[in-house]
């Protein structure tokens, strides 16, 4: 399930739904929630604006989830990502993955959020408490993580 929305989401409810859907099969459930945080020490983030490419965004995340299900035993990954104006400490993204075993669930969850950061067409614009406004630049470490997943080959 992939949802891109402006509204906030209820992470506990999403997790409960995933648990119910996979009850009996899943021995493990791993979730990731991302929040708006201060851009840097001494530079408080006032707001974050998230722009996206409708259509491509949902398809790209769907492809990432599909790749995760082909690589690990994770039947129904859930991804919810917000767009629009977000304030400090608000939720941005949720990834939920259930699996028979914890290894697959941990790996698939990390793979999905890492791939999302370098492939899903979202762009963040920060506005600091000082009023300074700028578009966030992709971190090299994020691109490197995605490259690592590609070089690690098939799931063990």
């Amino acid at each position, binding site marked *: 399930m992939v949802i891109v929305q402006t509204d906030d989401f209820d992470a506990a409810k999403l997790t409960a739904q995933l648990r119910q859907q996979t009850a009996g099969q899943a021995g493990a459930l791993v979730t990731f929630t*991302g929040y708006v945080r201060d851009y840097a020490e001494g530079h408080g983030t006032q707001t974050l604006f*998230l*722009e*996206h*490419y409708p*259509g*491509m965004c949902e*398809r*790209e995340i769907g492809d990432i989830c599909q790749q995760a299900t082909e690589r690990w035993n994770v039947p129904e990954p859930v991804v919810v*990502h917000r767009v629009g104006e977000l304030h400090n400490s608000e939720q*941005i*993204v949720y990834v939920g993955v259930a699996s028979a075993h914890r290894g697959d669930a941990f790996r698939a969850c990390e793979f999905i*959020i890492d791939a*999302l*950061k*370098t*492939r*899903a*067409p*979202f*762009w*963040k*614009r920060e506005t600091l408490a000082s009023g300074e406004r700028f*578009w*966030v*630049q*992709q971190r090299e470490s*994020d*691109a490197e993580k995605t490259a690592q997943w590609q070089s690690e080959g098939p799931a063990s």
Partner: protein
Amino acid sequence: MSGTAINVLYFAQVAELTGTRIESWPLDKPVSGADWLAQLEARYPQLAPAQRLKLAVNQFHVKPSAVINPGDEVAVFEPVTGG
């Protein structure tokens, strides 16, 4: 639209620098992504401060070697920063 133009979409900082989010761009024969990007940068010199420009064709990420055909939807943006 098909045949003689591409539909170009600009996102985030690229949209701010070009001052537009969508435009029709005349194109009557296939062109490589790299060659088209050179045309884009010639038309919008204000894109110079942008980080590496990326392309998507028909809503899929592509490399500069990819071919753009008349009728395609072409999106231009800086590296993505979601999550």
